[in-house]
């Protein structure tokens, strides 16, 4: 009866490997779960690593479009901190009484730029009222995050409307799920141009910035951060304070974000 025994042993080993039992040490310091706007990925990963090294507590970051994250929080997703890419979605969560009182503050600022794919040959674009965006696109599409809901898309649409160009490109969009997906479309050459944050363009070597949208063409870009009411993690607030601290500031600024939080000591 050796075969069934071996099969059973194999099955048990497989199950153990697939479902590791929680080790006692990990239960003490449950990781801090952060829901953050997609554009924060590069900077936040570095900052989180730095904080974990200092505090010994792990960080689990979930990046996505702010409306998607807001919806998940609303449905009870187990997040400790939320960093949105605009005020609307933080307001949304606040109205549902899901924020921990007194923890909300504006953390970062950003700007939006026009990026071009690797095979772009038309040089710099002067972004001014009525600039010939539709012509520049040729037969291609303008990659943007979803213009109805996602902050990067909303800022982009607002800027295009202010500049009087929105109608000429409204049906020539390639709307992506979040700003990083839009960035990928341009990087891959699927879309010749795209509107993303300056910080995204800096993070992706394959795209070139060919134009910058004036700050007054769209509402100010503000990333608020807050702790969530249902958070049970005692380290959440420590991480939130760290995000406003000098080590985090240095990394954010290096990646191109404007840091709005008041300077604090660490």
């Amino acid at each position, binding site marked *: 009866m050796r075969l069934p025994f071996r099969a059973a042993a194999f099955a048990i080993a497989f199950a153990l490997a697939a479902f590791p039992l929680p080790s006692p040490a990990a239960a003490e310091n449950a990781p801090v779960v952060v829901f953050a706007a997609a554009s924060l990925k590069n900077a936040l990963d570095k900052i989180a690593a730095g904080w974990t090294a200092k505090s010994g507590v792990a960080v689990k970051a979930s990046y996505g479009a702010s409306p*998607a994250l807001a*919806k998940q929080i609303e449905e009870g997703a187990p997040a400790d901190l939320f960093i949105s890419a605009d005020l609307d979605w933080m307001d*949304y969560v606040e109205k549902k009484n899901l924020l921990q009182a007194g923890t909300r503050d504006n953390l970062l600022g950003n700007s939006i730029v026009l990026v071009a794919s690797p095979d772009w040959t038309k040089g710099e674009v002067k972004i001014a009222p009525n600039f010939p965006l539709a012509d520049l696109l040729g037969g291609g599409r303008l990659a943007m995050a979803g213009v109805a809901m996602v902050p990067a898309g909303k800022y982009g649409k607002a800027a295009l409307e202010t500049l009087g160009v929105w109608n000429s490109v409204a049906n020539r969009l*390639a*709307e*992506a*799920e979040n700003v990083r997906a839009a960035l990928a479309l341009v990087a891959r050459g*699927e879309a010749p141009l795209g509107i993303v944050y300056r910080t995204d363009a800096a993070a992706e070597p394959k795209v070139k910035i060919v134009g910058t949208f004036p700050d007054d063409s769209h509402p100010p870009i503000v990333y608020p951060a807050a702790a969530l009411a249902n958070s049970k993690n005692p380290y959440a607030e420590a991480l939130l304070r760290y995000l406003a601290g000098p080590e985090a500031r240095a990394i954010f600024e290096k990646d191109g974000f404007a840091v709005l939080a008041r300077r604090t000591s660490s």
Partner: protein
Amino acid sequence: MDWLQFSPDEWDAIRLSLRVATVGTFASLPAGLFAAYALARWRFPGKIFFDGLVHLPLVLPPVVTGYLLLILFGRRGPIGAFLESAFGIVFSFRWTGAALAAAVMGFPLLVRAIRLSFEAADRRLEDAARTLGANAPLVFLTVTLPLALPGILAGLVLAFAKALGEFGATITFVSNIPGETRTLPTAIYTYTQVPGGDANAARLAAVAIVLSLAALVVSEFLSRRIAARIGG
């Protein structure tokens, strides 16, 4: 029954899904017939690999299939660039791309069903046709194909239903452009990602269920009628 009112966006998604699934499925029929016949009747070197290739979309994660389609048929992919410059055929962000993804994902189901019915076709009847003067193409068209019709139909319906529900490959390959590639499943997904989209998602999900059921019922009905006419 206000909640049954579909918005223009929702109608777009329904119409697009039907168009994508129909075009994708029927466009893949000739290749499906060929592959099924080759697998059922011929012996050739590399047959096992051919069989594996045909079944690949069935076992690969759909997003991997979509990714491979992107690499090959995207604007800068070898096949995509050629088709665009030679024939003006573009798949990126277009419903044609969604149809291609749907066709590829449904292909294994199509081939499996048709292959079974070719294998079941009575060879003795084909022999009789040959003795009556029919050459190989005529035997195929006048005897094999009509006898295999119930299986071909079943395969088409399966592939159609798969195409209606195709999501992973579509969204990876041609993204989610309203009116072009926002099919039913993609639209439902988009609605579930934003606050306030739940009612839309539920409505479209109901439509998807109804369409799939209808496809199954029609295929069953047609299959039985044809089998009855052929039987014996």
